[in-house]
């Protein structure tokens, strides 16, 4: 790890202004990706602006129609939140199966979304539920947030403050894990909004995406057979040691069908 300066701002506002003065600086959320990259000397920020003491960025608010999660809320806290479990059980379950126990107690939803790892879990839920991401500057709709491999709509220095998930009629997330890293090789989040359906896919492409054909079929009828016959094209999907684009395409259909089955249970 290269040397860096460490800062612990007292407010989100201070964090943003600190960051504005440090072009090579980075926000530190849970550190589950950034610190690893720094240890491998692949990332060498000049400054780390630690957000972990900012209470204003943590916490969960559940209303009848939405679940709002503060950006610095740890995965374990989302997983354990009874009201999340009641409103969107699929979201709590997703959070409870991210990484391992240690990761879940450090990693945060804001950090995960800002990093936009192609195999992260939360992006599938954000797209699958049509969440809204609030930053220190604006609100960004899910569909406009993920821009590509590790790329988001966030501008330099822009800080995620919370994420709001609409409560669906039913939803489920089904993940096929990379055998080594246990990240999502393919993860599919399906949600039924009654006559409207959304399908968010992670792990399969350079960045999470929606599967329009499946959404259409599920809108007509939210049932396993609606997606079971949808053949996904391998074109543009990731290929690596663990899964070819063809295998990933196949797994999207299998995981989508299993997710619909799970949602209906």
């Amino acid at each position, binding site marked *: *790890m*290269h*040397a860096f300066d460490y800062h612990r701002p007292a407010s989100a506002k201070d964090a943003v202004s600190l960051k504005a003065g440090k072009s090579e600086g980075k926000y530190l959320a849970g550190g589950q990706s950034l610190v690893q990259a720094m240890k*491998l*000397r692949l990332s060498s920020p000049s400054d780390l602006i630690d957000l972990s003491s900012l209470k204003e960025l943590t916490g969960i608010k559940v209303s009848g129609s939405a679940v709002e999660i503060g950006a610095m809320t740890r995965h374990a806290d989302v997983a354990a939140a009874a009201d999340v479990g009641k409103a969107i059980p699929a979201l709590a379950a997703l959070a409870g199966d991210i990484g391992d126990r240690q990761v879940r107690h450090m990693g945060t939803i804001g950090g995960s979304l800002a990093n936009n790892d192609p195999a992260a879990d939360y992006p599938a839920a954000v797209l699958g539920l049509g969440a809204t991401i609030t930053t220190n500057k604006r609100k960004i709709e899910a569909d406009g947030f993920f821009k590509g491999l590790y790329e988001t709509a966030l501008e330099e220095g822009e800080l995620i403050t919370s994420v709001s998930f609409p409560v669906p009629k039913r939803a489920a997330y089904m993940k*096929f894990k990379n*055998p*080594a*890293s246990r*990240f999502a090789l393919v993860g599919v989040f399906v949600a039924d909004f009654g006559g409207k359906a959304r399908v968010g896919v992670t792990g399969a492409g350079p960045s999470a995406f929606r599967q329009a054909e499946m959404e259409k079929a599920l809108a007509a009828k939210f049932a396993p057979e609606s997606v079971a016959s949808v053949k996904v094209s391998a074109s543009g999907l990731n290929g690596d*040691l*663990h*899964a*070819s684009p063809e*295998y990933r395409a*196949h*797994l999207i259909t*299998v995981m989508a069908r299993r997710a619909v089955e799970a949602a209906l249970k």
Partner: protein
Amino acid sequence: MSTSLIGARVQRKEDYRFLTGAGQYTDDVALPQQSYAAFVRSPHAHAVLKKVDIEKAKKAPGVIAVYTGADLANAKVGGLPCGWLITDVKGQPMKEPPYPSLAQGKVRHVGERVAVVIAETLAQAKDAAEMVEVDYDVLPAIIDPKKASSAKGIHEIAPDNVCYVWALGDKAAIDAAFAKAAHVTKLDLVNNRLIPNAIEPRSANATYSRASDDYTLYVTSQNPHVERLLMTAFVLGLPESKVRVVAPDVGGGFGSKIYLYPEDVVVTWASKQLNRAVKWTADRSESFVSDAHGRDHVTVAELALDKDGKFLAMRVKTTANLGAYLSTFASCIPTILYATLLAGQYTTPLIYCEVTAVFTNTAPVDAYRGAGRPEATYVVERLVETAARDLKMDPVEIRRKNFIRQFPYQTPVALLYDTGNYEQTLDAALQIADVKNFPKRREESLRKGKLRGIGYACYIEACGIAPSNVAGSLGARAGLFEAGEIRVHPTGTVTVFTGSHAHGQGHETTFAQVVADRLGLPIENVEIVHGDTSKVLFGMGTYGSRSIAVGGTAIVKALDKIVAKGKKIAAHLLEASEADIEYDRGVFKVAGTDKKKMFGEVAFAAYVPHNYPLDKLEPGLNENAFYDPTNFTFPAGSYVCEVEVDKETGTTTIASFTAVDDFGKVINPMIVEGQVHGGLAQGIGQALTEGCRYDESGQLVTGSFLDYTIPRAGDVPMFQLDTRETPCTHNPLGVKGCGEAGAIGAPAAVMNAITDALGVKDVPMPATAQTVWKSLQEKAHARV
């Protein structure tokens, strides 16, 4: 009389230390004047070193020294030696290219050491290492062992990249048997390359004293005396008396810590140059690219059978990838420890094996848990199971038909099995695995949309490679005995010094059980010392499941001497004739009387020799022994594996795994079970998850745990274990060894089960979900 400690489930004495974080590993050793080394490693698989510019690095903060290959060459530091000379089919010695500790002129694999930076802190050393500027002229890399012999040589001495072509058996006779056979089963097999990944990375911390002109090296080694011998005699040209090697607590080895590594040499040499203690500890990324890897065979295997399934002959051609350099025992693994195991548990009368060992631009390959024997078992047991399917025979029956039943048994591949009872372990395994109800379970699985398969493996292992003179005639450049010493203290407590080395095996408990049982002592009164050349008289170390069979026997031989001397002392104390003294577990007794002396009384008399035959006997009670076995030991066992395959995703789950092993006498069943669990996990890892991959340019694709899949607890089932005992006939404990068995037998059992589930001839290891899915797709297409 107390109950015997042999066969008792004694809790591990070492666990308090380990579980409370009090273990002392090499990296825990902090020496005065400590400095830290960081190695500059090649990012290329094959390149000419045009220039290594260290000027900037030398001026970096905290840097004490920077050395390159040129510095070692100027100081006449030799290359690393290979410990086994293989003579090829033409009677010529194998090709032994130089293996420099820091690259000389060329690099031959990603991760090869180009320079070392030594600094006041580790961070400073790492920062400065990034400032070493290396100008590489990148050359084409040869990665695929099958293509190595037609590529340009990576070493001058081996222009076709062939280290040796070696063979065992009468090819003409075997070819003739094949020509006449009613049936031939043929398989193309790849034994996948594995990366060891001991939990503790390699580490070396060396210090030099100008006052006494000697060195101390703390190092993660499975055999500190061998490390010292190789380093002093072959590399640094130092008297052994001037080098102390300490291998303190070592966190796993699996073979990867047998070898002398370049980093060990560099820090030891540098400690004198700088008059400083120099420490290097691999980070995990360095372990991946620089530890010796395992396996990596490409094989064509054939079995000739008569119409009733009797084995007539076996023909095996293997290409073995040795990597870029010859690691310490690399050459004997795909030959001496492989071809000789191809008889397995069967009476196959004719066996021919030809091995072409090649150099490639990959990390060196050497012994890894099982070392040659898993590769052999994979060949034999996959062939046998496939032959049964070809002939529509029950795979169990074809094995019974061919089992060796008369012992001793001379195999056609040089080994003499002393004892065994293969049917006994197989019968037990079939019963425990409830094989007769397998068809029902298969139907249940099908109802859930899962494909269920069953597979068997009946393995043989050869442990405690020996005797030294035979090994020598086969090319070994070292002895294969073991040494032990029993130091009895005046109050009758005992310190045992053993040349075996524990790095997870629990010797401190198992060996103490042997000694405490023989001397009638509480186990707390027996202390086991290992891993320090200044304490232990000599040692060949721990590998090849040899510790209890060879190291344990050396201890028993020393105990015999203790008891013999004790009898003389007891005879004096009891005023009886020595011939009348009987000994049993701590009690010296005059035969036929109730006159006796306890072991502690005898020990006390030896050290306070007031009433003692000083005219005939030296005081004191301390004995040592060297034991060179007359033969290998031959553990064997029968494994039954059931798998369930998810047809949609290709995911394979081990539904059950039964292992019945014959390790001869078992000293501590709990420790043996632990060894079997670990071995099975690694064997299942090889079959299902682990596979080292280089890309065509020689970059290690599986260079971290993000891509290299070691098995997790959830990947293995609750094992069903049992043992049967046919005691070894040529060592006093009747023991055979158990460390590698699981890793030897498991891959074949798992792959036989998967191929059974899928109804295909072969699936390559590791059978990941993607691989199995592809196999199912191909089968579906073939049907259309």
